[in-house]
């Protein structure tokens, strides 16, 4: 069982609407969580590497929600860099994206994505998807961060 410390979630998403939806869904989660939002791939990398505008006290996320289509550095590149970095490689990365294209799904998993989810258009399904995600990754799955 996890402690009372809220779970740290990094959400990389350039669409403010989707950020709202994800926040709303995670608010419903029965697991305490802090959401950190970054708006493009470069910011995501800065956050993770504590570079750019992110200082030494930037929390290390327990879970990363990553959109594919983002300005500057896209989700695929971010994923590749995360999985190539020893410090970050073990953080579960969930691709939460509007693309259901086979190539994107296959490539993401090849690059080491832990889950790939196509953003549902319907409200209930979207909420359910994020809730189930939180439930699985935060409550059910045993993560390396707990071992460390």
């Amino acid at each position, binding site marked *: 069982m996890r402690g009372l410390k809220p779970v740290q979630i990094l959400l990389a998403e350039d*669409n403010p*609407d989707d950020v*709202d939806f994800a926040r709303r869904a995670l608010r419903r989660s029965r697991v305490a969580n802090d959401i950190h939002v970054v708006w493009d791939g470069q910011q995501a990398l800065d956050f993770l590497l504590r570079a750019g505008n992110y200082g030494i006290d930037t929390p290390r996320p327990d879970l990363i929600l990553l959109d594919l289509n983002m300005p500057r550095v896209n989700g695929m590149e971010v994923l590749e860099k995360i999985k190539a970095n020893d410090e970050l490689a073990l953080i579960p990365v969930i691709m939460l994206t*509007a693309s259901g*294209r086979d190539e994107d799904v296959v490539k993401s998993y090849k690059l080491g994505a832990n889950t790939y989810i196509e*953003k549902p258009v319907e*409200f*209930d399904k*979207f909420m359910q998807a994020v809730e189930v995600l939180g439930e699985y990754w935060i409550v059910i799955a045993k993560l390396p961060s707990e071992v460390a």
Partner: protein
Amino acid sequence: MAEAKSESSGRKRRGQALPEALAYGQAIVETVREPLLILDGGLRVRSANRSFYQSFRVSPEETEDHLVYELGNRQWDIPKLRELLEEVLPKNTQFEDFEVEHEFATIGRRTMLLNARRLLHEAGRGEMILVAIEDISERKQAEEALERRLSELDAFAYTVTHELKEPLRTIEMFSRIVLEDYGERLDEQGQDHVMRLARASVRMNRLIDDLLTLSRVSREPVPQTRILVGQVVGEVVDATQTLIDERGASVEVEDGLPDVAADPARVEQVFANLIGNALKFNESEQPFVRVGVRGVGGGMVTFYVQDNGIGIDPKYHERIFGPFERLHGREEYEGTGAGLAIVKRVVETLGGRIWVESEAGAGATFLFMLPVWTEEAASVDMRAA
């Protein structure tokens, strides 16, 4: 004297027949648009036609009496051609549509289809080989260009649908959020309006998905494998079980449905759609659906999906297969109207056709043909692959 005379006139007749036959042959060779080469048994060029000289920019002087491989600075010294002339032809007397790609010094890279035939000549003149060369480079390029354009179009369709879906998600989600957060402050009419917004965006989302499916169905190559139709139908029925139970319906599937040569996803799509429709457009107390075979012939098997549903007036029998055609109001039966259009395209892509037998109010029987799976068909397919 008389004998000698008649002998000489006989020779004369034969002597006339030969030039006539030669002239006839020559005329054919010259008239044909395709480049032709006539070789002797030793693969030396006896002659070529005008089309050959024009197409490959060579002169008769540098062609006739030369070994075929020596032609035009040895540009015909193509390993594949050697193999054909020296190994395939002596065994088979002819070959057809052998594709050869070669970089020519004079005219660049060309793709050619070669046909050749070995003719055994009478008395001492040895054999003769006729080689016809069809330049298919342009057709090949056109096909490749088309393929490129289609895949660009595919990518475009994907991007467009993707971009269209994003604002839709926003509309749907915020209408639901309005209901969730401010629902109590809205009166019934206000709530209804917001619900309609949400429903319209969900519907549009389905339309976009169906449009994408429609545009892709006939484009993607069909891998031909052995499909156990009985099993596929069983799976479709299992997946529809909730609906079947809700409607108190019964679905009968004939035993021993023949196997077809197609791909599983497409066959499933066809049966799922037709069985789904049979249950959906059905107001009977006890809906039933029957799946079976009407007949087998000409390499095709005709399946049927029969129901005791609302039926279709014969004047709509063509129209129902058109994209986004609906015969009923949305309030009556929901759906985008793309289902049968998708089924039709799938069936046609698989080489079959689909039609319906029905009267309004008297149930409907959808019939469609799919290619029967046979061992031979499978081995042909292996060769093609």
